[in-house]
């Protein structure tokens, strides 16, 4: 067991836990307070995309707890709350402005009052405090050039890398998470076994996997070396610094971001993205909630509900379409929801201890867009889906596959990955 320090207490964590999971195991429900209204915040996505779990870790502010591995002696504190995150006096802002506060027009009438108001706003603004210390110097940046870069080691990326490797191409697979597998690791239908199998196939095919490495951007004007053509991927390899990466071909399998649904107090701790609950179950063996409401009607919602049920939870299904969710009730953790049944006149209360929001994830199309791909808003596909041709080509030298081209789920994403990987491999052969 690893022991971390949390606000004066020692907490035990499993060696594979990230800080957010360790705190969850320890029963810590409020991880932070929001920037304007100081509303309590807990875990939402558990994948480093939503900004709900920012904490002060080892004296550095605004660190994602879900992307920080536990280590002996790690110091974890909550931020932006006084006197404590559990009882934050500044949450009065949420209470005094129940319908919201239009900061554009707040107290503009009187100049003197306006100056005072601004002083107060500045004092209570911001999230974390300036770091206590400088950080240690990082290693010198590295530079690499490979035949094919595949960004995203989820179902699509692993399948594509496997296909490319089998065709004899040199492939570097880059994944931001500390463990490759992507959405397999959030899905009880696939789970660790499917992830590990896919990773083994990719490695056996010769693909190299660089994990804990977040691609920050495609920079079209920066060159990796003097005289080299401009264009490079800047990669933050956690704990190691910057990597300037270039390739002959770029394949984006960046997946999709978890989304919330819109209802009153939808940011209440205890309202989690479905795939976060999936991650807790699959990666950490945690059955979140004894009585969870699973909100959503799709195949993933169904599968997750069954898995939770099978693990002993009392699951309530709400489709969210015919029966609409109106609010998440409770205090600093959810204890019930209000729904409106079709043809119902009055809201109905359902008690629960978790709300599992299975909304369509939104394609993570920023990187292919930076690299010249177009997108189109397809609500039925989750959001702004990357536009690709028949073989997955999104722009010159750029391909995309899997959920980033429209949410399809792990099985279809893997199928696409194989097809597009093979197509990219063929472009090497076809060249004179």
């Amino acid at each position, binding site marked *: 067991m690893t022991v971390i320090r949390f606000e004066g*207490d020692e*907490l035990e964590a499993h060696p594979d836990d990230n800080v957010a999971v360790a705190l969850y195991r*320890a*029963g*810590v*429900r*409020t991880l932070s307070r*929001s*920037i*304007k*209204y100081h*509303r*309590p*915040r807990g875990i939402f*996505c558990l994948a*480093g*995309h939503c*900004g*709900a779990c920012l904490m002060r870790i080892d004296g550095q502010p*605004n660190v994602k707890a879900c992307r920080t591995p536990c280590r002996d002696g790690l110091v974890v504190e909550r931020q932006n709350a006084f006197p404590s995150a*559990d*009882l934050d006096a500044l949450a009065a802002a*949420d209470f005094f402005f*129940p319908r*919201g506060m239009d900061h554009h027009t707040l107290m503009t009438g009187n100049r003197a009052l306006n100056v005072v108001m601004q002083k107060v706003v500045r004092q209570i603004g911001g*999230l974390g405090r300036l770091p206590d210390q400088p*950080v240690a*110097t*990082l*290693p*010198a940046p590295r530079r690499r050039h490979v035949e094919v870069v595949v960004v995203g080691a989820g179902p699509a990326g692993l399948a594509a890398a496997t296909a490319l490797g089998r065709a004899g191409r040199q492939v570097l697979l880059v994944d931001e998470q500390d463990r490759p597998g992507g959405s397999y690791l959030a899905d009880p239908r696939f789970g660790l076994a499917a992830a590990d199998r896919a990773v083994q196939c990719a490695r056996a095919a010769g693909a190299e996997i660089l994990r804990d490495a977040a691609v*920050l*951007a495609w920079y079209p004007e*920066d*060159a990796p070396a003097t*005289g*080299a053509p401009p264009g490079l991927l*800047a990669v*933050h390899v956690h704990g190691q*610094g*910057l990597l300037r990466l270039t390739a002959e071909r770029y394949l984006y399998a960046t997946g999709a971001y978890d*989304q*919330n649904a819109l209802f009153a*107090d*939808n*940011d209440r701790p205890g309202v989690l993205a479905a795939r976060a609950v999936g991650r807790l179950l699959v990666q950490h063996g945690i059955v979140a909630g004894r009585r969870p409401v699973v909100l959503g009607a799709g195949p993933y919602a169904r599968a997750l509900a069954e898995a939770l049920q099978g693990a002993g939870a009392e699951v309530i299904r709400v489709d969210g379409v015919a029966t609409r969710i109106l609010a998440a009730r409770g*205090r*600093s953790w959810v*204890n019930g929801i209000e729904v409106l049944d079709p043809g119902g006149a009055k809201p109905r209360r359902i008690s629960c201890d978790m709300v599992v929001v299975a909304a369509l994830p*939104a394609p*993570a199309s920023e*990187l292919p*867009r*930076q690299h010249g791909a177009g*997108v189109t*808003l397809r*609500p039925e596909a*989750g*959001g*702004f889906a990357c536009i690709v041709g028949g073989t997955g080509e999104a722009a010159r030298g750029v391909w995309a596959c899997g959920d980033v081209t429209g949410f399809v789920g792990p099985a279809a994403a893997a199928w696409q990955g194989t097809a597009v990987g093979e197509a990219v491999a063929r472009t090497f052969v076809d060249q004179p």
Partner: protein
Amino acid sequence: MSDKAAAMSGKTAVMSGKTIICRCEDVTLDDVHCSFELGYATVEEVKRYTGLGTGPCQGKECMVLAARLIVSVAHLGGAPATVAPFTARPPLESAPLAIFVAAAGDDEDPAR
């Protein structure tokens, strides 16, 4: 679970019934509707008027919600194909200044 942690769980904090669309900046659904009323009804304009998408997650959790709202609000007349996302700027994950310090001096001029 320690005693203190147990004591911490779920007792305090009354929340006020807001529907939050941008978690990072506490932008509510009402804020976005206000923006629509004022005539600022593209994703870029909603972002600027309400602050949606300008926080640590840079729109990963909220931009599509805003886009869907634009499409669904009848008088805005936005068919999905007409709605564009806001510019995808670097870095796509927030990154500490320190990693760029170590890389300084290493930049090369692109080929002319």
